[in-house]
C-alpha cells in the first residue's frame, strides 16, 4: 500500500474528489493547508502573498493503482490545457501496515516494494 498526498487548488478540490469517486477510490481525507511553491508565492504589485490556501488530500491505495490514481488526480486538478503554476503537487510515500478500526483487522495488501519506493524518491 502507498500513501498519495496531493496538494491541489481549493476550487479544484470538488472536481478531484468527484473524479476519484467515479474512478472507484472513494476513501479520501481532506485538510486545508497553507503553503507556497517554487514561485515563492504570488506577487501582486508591491504585495507578495507567500501563504496561499491549498487543500491537501490523503489517499491510501494499492501500489498497482498508483499510476491510474496519479493520472486521475492530475487530470482533474489541472487548470487550462497545459496547467498553470499553483496547480499543486503529488507526493507518494510507502505505507507499511493498514488497520481497519471497526473490524480490528489488518488489511492484507502487498507491501510497498523497496525498489519502487527508491524509484519514487
Amino acid at each position, binding site marked *: 500500500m502507498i*500513501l498519495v498526498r496531493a496538494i491541489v487548488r481549493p476550487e479544484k478540490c470538488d472536481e478531484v474528489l468527484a473524479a476519484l469517486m467515479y474512478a472507484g477510490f*472513494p476513501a479520501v*481525507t481532506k485538510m486545508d493547508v497553507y503553503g507556497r511553491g517554487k514561485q515563492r508565492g504570488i506577487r501582486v504589485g508591491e504585495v507578495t502573498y507567500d501563504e496561499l490556501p491549498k487543500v491537501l488530500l490523503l489517499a491510501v491505495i494499492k501500489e498497482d493503482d498508483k499510476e491510474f490514481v496519479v493520472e486521475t488526480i492530475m487530470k482533474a486538478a489541472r487548470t487550462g490545457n497545459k496547467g498553470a503554476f499553483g496547480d499543486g503537487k503529488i507526493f507518494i510515500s510507502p505505507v*507499511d501496515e*493498514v488497520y481497519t*478500526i*471497526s473490524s480490528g483487522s489488518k488489511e492484507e495488501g502487498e507491501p510497498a516494494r523497496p525498489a519502487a519506493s527508491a524509484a519514487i524518491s
Partner: protein
Amino acid sequence: MKEVLAVIRMNMMNETKQALADAGISSFTARKVMGRGQGKVDYRLLRGAEEGHEEAINQLGPGPKLIPKRLVSVVVPDDTVQKVVRTIIEVNRTNHPGDGKVFVLPVTESVRVRTGERNDTALSESPI
C-alpha cells in the same frame, strides 16, 4: 521509527488521548480533517444520478459528502508501534463502519528542534 497515522471519530478524541497517555505515549499531533471512507457506494446509483434520473438523485440524499474526522499522528520507535496501534484500535472500536483507519508509515529521520538530537534519542522522554 514509524509514523502511526490514525483517522478516528471526533468524539473519541478524549478517550484516545487518555489511552495513549496511560500507555506511556505522551506526544502526538492531532488535527481536524474531513474525509470519506469506502462507505456503501453504489456506483449504479451514482451513474444514475449523473445521468439525471430523479429516483437515483432522491436516494442519494442531500447529506454532506465528507464527514468530519480527527487525524492523529504519532511518531514512535519501531518497538512501540504495535502498542500504539493496539491502543488506538481498542479505544476507538465500536464495530461500526466509520470507526476509522490506522496507517503505519516509515520515517527516515527525526530531529528535536530544541537540542538538535536525532532519531530515537529525539523521540525519547528527556528532562525539561
